Structure formats: structure tokens, C-alpha cells
């Protein structure tokens, strides 16, 4: 079985390719990449019209990889399941996701990791890489069985929203993980300073009378974990960077050669604390939306490579968690299906190179997680994503595949949309006919 994507703008950050051309897919793998500048002109006359996709200049990029999502299964299937979450991933252009361990029960045991892997293999529209807990029960005390979890398919370790408070435990985790060359992902917040805060501390928290979370809560935790990574030699990845100070710490650490990588989420480079106005619980997440100065620093961090990846922190919640008093509302927003539209703004408004943007969404997370994919290479599985950068995307309940619709972009019209996603030659999402 052969398929040809022709008349495409091929963008492959792994090879630095950004050229018009075509990609031939055969038996689930990329069989050939043909560039217009090399004189390629339709020698595939044996193909049926149904096997040819004229992309009319749309972007053809490696299938995207989201290294930070919450799939809610097992335990909170009313919010999302592995089936619906990966279906949303496919709609967003993603062929693989790494899912955080705060399920019910938490993923601190081989049985849970194995369950997620099996369920994903049976029902998933995207590959699922489970992130297991650093400590049993996310309790911050005893290490999980990291070696066995890795064998069962865990991709990295994180205590997610309940960061390891005791620095000695974090040091131990990093030392032990280093023995397995495993990745530690840090949700970097100093919990004592977070206390009962519900939004960024500053002007807006004062205007709304809401308790604040100071940006130093992130800064201190990032500093600690970088110091520990430097000391132990562990591989450290900082999740969802939201502050200017954290960007600067990571930039300095990288310059010193510390083995640290970092991600941010589309909401941190799109929105500020102003979005909370009106007690909008769909603008409540952890870490919180920050100031314009932080937003600009995050964008700068993405552009200069300080921040390696764009991850969504897709966090589905139902109205039970969101249509309540702001104090009581759960943290988090969905993000898989709006990530590409929002990220394209970095190219349109902030002068980011498309190659670099696609790297943040595919090649870089693949390298951090050490998984296949993230590139366009002959003989590799055909993981592809087609993006129409001009197509409008109305974010409505009906247009979303996620089970939940807790997004501050609900009701908005965004620009740019994924029109086709292919995982190992199988179309997992398509708006093309």
C-alpha cells in the first residue's frame, strides 16, 4: 500500500530541512522524500488518485510528541480516558504522549504502568509513554521500583503536582535514577510558598482578592533541582516553566553544562494572569498564569533554545471541578487540540523559525524522552502531521475530541489547524477527504 503526500512544505528539524516536496509512504514507513528543488516532478503515475494527497503547500512535519499530558485513566474516566485523550492527541497532530502518574491509583507500581500500556495498545490513537512516580504514593518518601517500572515501559519519573519536598529524597531519586540513566521530571514548586494560593501573586490577585502564589515558589524549586542535578549528574527535565526567573536559571545551567532540559506550555506564552479576571476557573492552573514580563521571557526562552519543548499539560476536568468557587476549582486546562494553533503564533507574531517550532513539538521531546520519531527519515515509521497554517479553528464543545472542555479558549476562533495525523502509516485523524 502506497500513499503520496505531494506539493507539501516539508519541515524536518532533525535534518534542518524546510523545502517544498513530497513524501511517499509504503507499508507504514516513509519510503521516499522528494524535493522540488532536486527536480522532482510527479513520476508516480502508477498511483490511484485516492492514494495521492495534494497538500497545496500545507506543512508536512514529523508526527508531534507531547511529553506532558494527563489521561485520567485509571480512576477518573469521567474526565478523560486513554481512548478519548489519545483521540484528542491525534486531532492535535500528536502521535505520542507521555502521561503523568497522578491517576487513581497513582502510577507508582508496575501493575498500573502495565495497565496503561496495554490499554493504550488496544484503544490508543497515539503511542502512550507512562511517566511513573518518583516516590510511592507520590508521598515524597520512599522511592518507587524504578528499574522494574522502566522494564514495564515507564519513560521517566515525576511526582507531578506533588513535587518532592524533601531535598534529601530528591537527591536520592536523582542518584538512583542516574544508575538507570533515567529521566527525572520536576514539577518545580516550593510548596511552602504555594500554600493556599490559587493564582499568581501580584496586581491581579490583589484586584480579585484571591490568594497568590509568588513566582519565587517556582524559582526556588528550579534552583534546587538544577543544583541537585549538577551535583548528582542525573538527567533532569523541568516541567511547564512559567516564570522569567526560571528561564534565566535554566539558561545559566545549560551554559554551565548541567544536564537539564525544560518545557513550557502554550498557555504560558499565550496568556497572562489577566485571563483570571471574572474568576475564570478555566484560567486556573498550576503553576499559575503569570505576568506579561514572564510571558515574554518564556517566548524568548523558546526562541533561544533554553526551553526545549512545548508540552500541553493537557489536564481534563469536568464541570464538577470547574463550575465551583474559584478557591475550590481544580487546577488545569486541556491543551492537546489547541497546541498547534496557539504555537503558530510564535512564528506569526514573534519571529520564531518554523523549524524551531516543530523541533519543540517533535524532535526535541523525542530526544529528551529517547523515543523513536520526531523526524522525517526514509525507512522510519511514517509518523506525520499535516498543518494548514491558515485554516480557522473554532474551539467549541462539538469540535473537541477530549471528554472535557475546560479551556480558556472555548468559544474562540484560532488560526491554523492540524488537518491530518498519521501514526506508523495509519491515519489517526483527518479533515482531508
Amino acid at each position: 500500500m502506497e500513499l503520496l503526500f505531494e506539493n507539501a512544505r516539508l519541515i524536518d528539524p532533525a535534518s534542518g530541512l524546510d523545502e517544498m516536496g513530497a513524501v511517499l509512504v509504503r507499508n507504514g514507513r516513509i519510503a521516499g522524500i522528494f524535493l522540488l528543488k532536486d527536480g522532482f516532478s510527479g513520476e508516480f503515475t502508477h498511483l490511484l488518485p485516492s492514494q495521492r494527497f495534494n497538500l497545496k503547500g500545507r506543512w508536512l512535519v514529523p508526527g508531534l510528541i507531547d511529553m506532558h499530558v494527563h489521561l485520567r485513566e485509571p480512576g477518573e474516566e469521567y474526565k478523560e480516558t486513554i481512548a478519548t485523550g489519545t483521540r484528542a492527541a491525534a486531532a492535535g497532530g500528536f502521535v505520542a504522549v507521555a502521561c503523568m502518574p497522578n491517576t487513581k491509583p497513582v502510577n507508582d507500581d508496575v501493575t498500573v504502568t502495565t495497565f496503561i500500556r496495554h490499554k493504550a495498545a488496544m484503544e490508543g490513537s497515539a503511542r502512550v509513554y507512562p511517566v511513573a512516580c518518583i516516590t510511592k504514593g507520590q508521598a515524597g518518601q520512599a522511592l518507587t521500583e524504578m528499574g522494574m517500572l522502566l522494564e514495564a515501559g515507564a519513560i521517566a519519573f515525576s511526582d507531578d503536582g506533588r513535587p518532592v519536598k524533601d531535598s534529601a529524597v530528591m537527591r536520592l531519586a536523582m542518584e538512583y535514577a542516574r544508575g538507570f540513566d533515567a529521566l527525572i521530571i520536576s514539577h518545580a514548586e516550593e510548596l511552602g510558598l504555594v500554600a493556599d494560593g490559587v493564582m499568581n501573586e501580584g496586581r491581579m490577585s490583589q484586584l480579585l482578592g484571591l490568594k497568590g502564589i509568588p513566582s519565587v515558589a517556582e524559582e526556588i524549586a528550579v534552583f534546587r533541582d538544577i543544583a541537585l542535578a549538577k551535583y548528582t549528574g542525573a538527567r533532569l527535565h523541568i516541567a511547564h516553566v512559567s516564570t522569567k526567573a526560571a528561564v534565566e536559571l535554566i539558561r545559566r545551567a545549560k551554559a554551565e553544562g548541567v544536564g537539564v532540559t525544560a518545557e513550557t506550555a502554550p498557555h504560558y506564552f499565550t496568556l497572562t494572569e489577566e485571563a483570571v479576571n471574572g474568576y475564570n476557573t478555566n484560567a486556573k492552573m498550576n503553576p499559575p498564569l503569570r505576568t506579561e514580563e514572564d510571558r515574554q521571557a518564556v517566548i524568548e526562552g523558546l526562541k533561544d533554545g533554553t526551553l526545549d519543548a512545548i508540552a500541553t499539560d493537557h489536564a481534563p476536568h469536568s464541570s464538577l471541578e470547574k463550575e465551583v468557587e474559584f478557591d475550590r476549582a481544580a487546577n488545569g486546562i486541556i491543551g492537546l487540540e489547541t497546541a498547534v494553533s496557539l504555537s503558530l503564533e510564535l512564528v506569526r507574531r514573534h519571529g520564531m523559525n518554523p523549524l524551531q517550532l516543530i523541533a519543540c513539538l517533535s524532535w526535541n521531546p523525542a530526544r529528551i524522552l529517547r523515543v523513536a520519531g520526531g523526524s522525517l527519515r526514509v525507512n522510519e515509521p511514517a509518523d506525520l502531521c499535516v498543518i494548514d497554517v491558515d485554516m480557522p479553528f473554532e474551539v467549541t464543545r462539538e469540535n473537541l475530541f477530549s471528554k472535557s472542555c475546560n479551556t480558556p479558549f472555548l468559544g474562540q476562533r484560532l488560526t491554523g489547524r492540524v488537518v491530518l495525523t498519521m501514526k506508523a502509516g495509519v491515519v489517526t485523524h483527518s479533515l482531508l477527504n
Partner: protein
Amino acid sequence: MNNRLSVKHILGVEQLTLEDIRLILDTAEALKEILDRPIKKVPPLRGCTVVTLFFEPSTRTRLSFELAAKRLSADTVSVSAATSSVLKGETLLDTVKNVEAMRPDILVVRHSSSGAPHFLARHLTGCSVINAGDGINQHPTQALLDLFTVRERLGRVKGLKIAILGDILHSRVAHSDIRIFKAMGAHVFVSGPASLLPIGLEALGACVTTKVEEALASADVVMLLRLQKERQGRSLIPSEREYANFFGLVQERCLNLASDAIFMHPGPINRGVELTSELADSQQSVILNQVTNGVAVRMAILSLLWADRS
């Protein structure tokens, strides 16, 4: 003259126009004499149902709203969170939608979560919501009665220096008072222990100082606030004694006040902490006038909201 409010709900001071504020004050002034009549009841709210929903304890504010409603012949019902179905696991929204289904006209809500009245106002279609204090956010009717009291006593507001002292961090009264006095052209200074002066306070337009003397110099109004120990997760000051020593209003700190300066307090007062007993009971204290005026101002608010509805 316009005699209609621009808003359907009273949620926060910033949502009121200057015309709204003046209208409420003028209406309160006209209604206040009813409180001194031998028969303290007039008919304008006949047929109006006012429900007070208090999810936090209150004596003064609740009594004030209930008396205001009764003086104007409204039917009043009070629901207290401690006895309500919140304890049975019902959400706030469901609780209030059930109340709304019984067709009240005005809901007076106090809640420990900032923004809870705004949340209810967004989801309710059939009734007006009055914020009687939400978390550490605002207490707009208190601000209106404070403004009324200053205007009544000093004859003007514009150009006055208002000093607000104490637990600004947790005081919804302060957050509303700063806004309303700024809007009316007064100069607002706030002071207290630095740990009780929240980051971002300047956004409200107040001059923030940790030097109490600077706030008190030539002040026309001194607004004292209670230390809200129940809202502090851990104590944010070393002790009440230390607080009284450095920040409490004592006679010696009053020497540089304006000659006709007044002392105010939203209550309940802790004698010997925020201010001395002598000052609380002095001629300059208008603390009990505030309480009386609270009824008049709430009568004004209820009648104006009702007039807009009917």
C-alpha cells in the same frame, strides 16, 4: 436626576459608577429618618423577598440586612451554611439554584471564597445578588456605609486624607474602602505590619507605608481593622502585644491628626489591640454611627435594586 442603578447586582465597588454611589448615598440619607420613627416600617418593598445566605458567621452584617429589609416591608428568610445542605455534599451552585427556584428577588450572600457572589450572579437569572463579603476580596456595602458616615460627619470626602491601619491583607473591608474613597477623590494611605500589606496593593491606588506616623499625619479619617487571626494560616505577626505597641491607635499617635479627625472600625473591635478603649468610646469615634448607617445604606441598596426589578 437619574434614579436608577447601572448594575443589577452589587458585587464590587469597581462596578459602581460615581452616579450609582451618589444615588445610594442620597437615597440612604432620605431613608435614614425612618429608623428614628416610633413606627419603623414603610411599604416600598412589599412583595419583595430577600434571602440572606451566609456561608460564614456574621452578626452585624446579617442583622443589618435583615432589619433594612424588614423596615421596608420585604419578606426575609435567612439561611446559614452551618445548617444548609452544603454539609450534605451539595455544591454551592446547586444550593443556590434551589433557592432561586423558590423565586426570591434579592439574594444577600456572604462566602469564604473570593468571587463566590460573582460566580452566583453569572449563573442566576432571576434575582439580584448582593455581596455581603467574599473571602478576602470585597465588602461593598460596608464601603458604602463607611463613605456615608464620613460624608455625614465631615460634610465632604474629596481631598480628605483617609488612613487605613491593620490587617490589610485579609480585610475585604479595606479592599472595598480603598476603592470607594479613591473613587470619591480622597487620599488613601494604608499602613500596618509589612507582613499584612499584600503585594500588589498599589494596584488599588492607595499609598502604602509601613510607617504608621506617615499614614496618620494630618489624617481626617482613621479606619482601624481587626486582626483576622481566623484567616491567617499561621500567625503573620509575633503577638498582639507587639502589634498594639507599634500599630495600635493610642493617644500619643493621635497628636498629628486633623483637628476634627474621626475613628472608624467595621467591627468587631478588639479593645486594647487596634485601638484603646478610651479612643473607641471617645467623641471622635463614629463606630456606632457606622452601624446605624449600615441599616440606612442597605435600605437604600435594597430599594434601588427592587425599583429596577419592578
